[in-house]
């Protein structure tokens, strides 16, 4: 081991092979020897390589050196710090070294995985390591910050995922605010007739959960409400919720339903009934709605539009109708947030060649769900658009708006199973012939493929190929009056024209139209497809990069019901973990003012979006409140006197890193 250079802390450099992930593109042994030889003058007293630094043996190697060689700084050249910074800082801490004196260099994500020339890649790895060696010498020991956690939780979205999350937290004894923008919780699941593959009645399994959520004393149910602003940070979010005026006094209403019986105004229900049925201007979306209180749909209410009517008010036995009700704004303090905001359905009208909106007997999957539902607009009868005729032949088209570069590249996951369910229901209820037009059959979950086999056995006909067009232009006498599905059957290599009476479009899922705004509100980002982005797609699918904000259900991507329920429960488990710890540890990356250097110029004063910076007029200086500071460092960069310094990313650290990176130049 080489002697330590005076005035430089003793540094150990550890370079990882990551199996062959790094060593196939970076000459790790060469890097190891170079670090010892060329960085010795910079304080490096030991340089080692190892097959897997993150293994317990690799970590022990570091711990041993810290103890035996008295290392004061550690540099690990391996993968991204977002993966293993915690691991190696933990190892240092176990050996008695302050964790913030350990830094990582990403030579996998930023070198070996993205470059193709081993000589150049090795040189770049060395330069990055040199930068971090210089930087780490400037690191200061830091202590983690601890902030208390408010035990209340906000759940946004009252679909099955949000309901599950709310119940898990509430049943553990903590308070939940469950916010839903529709008049009732239940989400898309409340609209379905049956669930695949068990063919459970969707409402029968969902409504007990809804009732449970509605009656749990730990859950404050805020339907017909939306979150309008969020401030604060993990442990202490301050949330403003807009409770839209229902025009119904919840204290007085019994949910008897006389108001909507007497309301003279019928409106097409394009939310719950998917445009297939009607509701009144005062309504609850469905019979089992939770809460039971109706809302008055102001733009469609005769009284609000014309000034007369008030039929609901006249007949209400408890005088619960209140036309003067105003929107209310509630302020709540919560420690954690779970976003389960769900999905929008793909607009089938965009695929013009399938004729939705133009050809009456082309239906979307959601319209068909409502049609099958005994409480739906047709009372469960499967009929053509005329409401009478039963179809003799039905064509079901998969992947409408999904797996299509013109619309969405991704697979919507549930459409294959949904289409198989439809085939079964059509067969069972009408005996019609059913064609499934599919690209690939995806039935990858418990009991799903068995259901596919069952539908095959029932005699459903499967045509493998993407449908080109649905048309009513007949070419043959037997096509007259039918919808003709033009498709290439790729299994026999022929174009086919298949006449059917009814076409069902299995439409995909899309991110909520306002997902981006919601993301901004809560400080989380969306993937390029528009779904909320996970902290890690494999290992942390329900966390986000913002501490204290969790995501669950279809808001993170297409999912089936079991997947949504599991994520809701998983997010709740994370929240409970935080609540039970009573306080959360935060990275100690904060800015502070050297009051001797501060001239009181106030340039920094307006830069902080968290209001952490305030001017002390009596002292003529500025101070930073460490409890509010989030550590972005913008004020550090702005201070003309260099009076503000930021822990973890100080000027000295960055300057040293720049020097190191450019050392060989």
């Amino acid at each position: 081991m080489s002697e330590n250079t005076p005035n430089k802390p003793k540094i150990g450099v550890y370079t990882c092979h990551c199996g062959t992930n790094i060593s196939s593109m970076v000459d790790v042994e060469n890097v190891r020897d170079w670090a010892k030889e060329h960085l010795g003058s910079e304080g490096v007293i030991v340089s080692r390589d190892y097959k897997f630094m993150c293994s317990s043996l690799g970590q022990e190697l570091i711990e041993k050196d810290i103890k035996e060689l008295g290392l004061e700084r550690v540099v690990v050249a391996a993968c991204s710090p977002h993966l293993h910074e915690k691991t190696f800082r933990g190892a240092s801490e176990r050996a008695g070294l302050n964790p913030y004196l350990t830094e990582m260099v990403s030579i996998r994500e930023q070198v070996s995985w993205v470059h193709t020339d081993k000589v150049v890649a090795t040189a770049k790895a060395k330069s990055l390591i040199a930068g971090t060696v210089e930087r780490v010498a400037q690191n200061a020991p830091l202590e983690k910050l601890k902030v208390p956690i408010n035990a209340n939780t906000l759940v946004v979205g009252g679909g099955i995922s949000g309901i599950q999350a709310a119940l898990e937290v509430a049943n553990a004894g903590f308070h939940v605010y469950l916010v839903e923008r529709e008049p009732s919780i239940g989400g898309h699941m409340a609209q379905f007739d049956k669930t695949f593959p068990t063919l459970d009645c969707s409402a029968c399994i969902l409504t007990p959960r809804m009732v449970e959520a509605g009656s749990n004393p730990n859950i404050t149910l805020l339907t017909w409400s939306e979150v309008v602003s969020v401030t604060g940070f993990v442990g202490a979010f301050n949330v403003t919720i807009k409770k839209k005026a229902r025009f119904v006094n919840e204290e007085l209403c019994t949910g008897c339903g006389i108001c909507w019986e007497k309301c003279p105004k019928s409106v097409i229900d394009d939310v719950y009934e998917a445009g297939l049925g009607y509701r009144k201007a005062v309504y609850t979306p469905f019979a089992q709605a939770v809460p039971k209180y109706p809302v008055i749909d102001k733009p469609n209410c005769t009284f609000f539009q014309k000034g007369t009517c008030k039929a609901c008010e006249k007949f209400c036995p408890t005088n619960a109708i209140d036309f003067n009700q105003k929107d209310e704004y509630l302020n709540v303090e919560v420690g954690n947030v779970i976003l389960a905001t769900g999905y929008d359905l793909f607009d089938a009208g965009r695929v013009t060649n399938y004729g939705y909106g133009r050809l009456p007997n082309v239906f979307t999957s959601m319209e068909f769900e409502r049609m099958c539902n005994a409480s739906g607009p047709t009372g469960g009868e499967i009929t053509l658009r005329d409401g009478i005729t039963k179809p003799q032949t039905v064509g079901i088209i998969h992947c409408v708006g999904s797996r299509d570069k013109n619309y969405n590249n991704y697979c919507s996951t549930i459409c294959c199973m949904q289409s198989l369910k439809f085939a079964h229901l059509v067969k069972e209820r009408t005996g019609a012939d059913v064609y499934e037009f599919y690209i690939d059959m995806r039935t990858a979950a418990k009991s799903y493929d068995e259901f596919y086999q069952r539908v095959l056995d029932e005699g459903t006909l499967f045509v493998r190929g993407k449908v080109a067009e649905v048309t009513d232009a007949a070419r043959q006498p037997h096509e007259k009056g039918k919808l003709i599905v033009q498709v290439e059957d790729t299994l026999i290599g022929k174009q086919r024209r298949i006449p059917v009476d009814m076409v069902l479009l299995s439409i995909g899922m899309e991110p909520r139209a306002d997902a981006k705004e919601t993301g901004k509100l809560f400080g989380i980002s969306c993937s390029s497809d528009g779904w909320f982005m996970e902290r890690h797609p494999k290992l942390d699918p329900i966390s986000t990069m913002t501490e204290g904000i969790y995501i669950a259900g279809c808001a993170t991507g297409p999912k089936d019901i079991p997947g949504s329920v599991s994520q809701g429960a998983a997010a709740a488990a994370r929240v409970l973990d935080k609540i039970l710890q009573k306080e959360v540890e935060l990275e100690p990356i904060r800015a502070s003012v050297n009051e001797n250097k501060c001239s009181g110029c106030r340039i920094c004063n307006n830069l902080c979006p968290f209001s952490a910076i305030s001017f002390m007029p009596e002292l003529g200086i500025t101070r930073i409140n460490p409890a509010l500071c989030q550590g972005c460092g913008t004020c550090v960069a702005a201070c003309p006197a260099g009076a503000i310094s930021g822990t973890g990313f100080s000027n000295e650290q960055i300057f040293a890193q720049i020097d190191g990176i450019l050392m060989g130049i």
Partner: protein
Amino acid sequence: MSEQFEPVIVGFTCNWCSYRAADTAGTARVKYAPNVRLIRLMCSGRLDPTFVMKALAGGADGVLITGCHPGDCHYIEQNYKALRRFLLLRRTLAGLGVEPGRIKLIWASAAEGLKLAHEINQFVEEVRALGPLNWPKWNDQPAEIDAVKEVA
């Protein structure tokens, strides 16, 4: 093969979007030019213009500044401040006789590994076209080094 100029570029990323875009590019094995060496900051708002000056003075031919898309900033709005500083810095550089094209600001979300790789490749070509930045080596002139340190 003819010797072509390989520019050295220092890149600054924020911790939340663009550093993760680099991670995403890595995980997806997207290949890009090896000329850029990234330094992680917490936020593009942390970018002190002297970092850029120091990198250029220290031998870099170009500096890439990356951050979250406008409106997506982890710290709400600090990337706008990075944008302001970037625009001022370009003018300052022009005043010093350095081509403003040697610094570039790009936005990359954590999902945009492909975009980051593409932007890096493009910037490397742009700086390659500008040629080496032949600033005097200040290592031999301690007085000037002290002057820079004073400013920093």
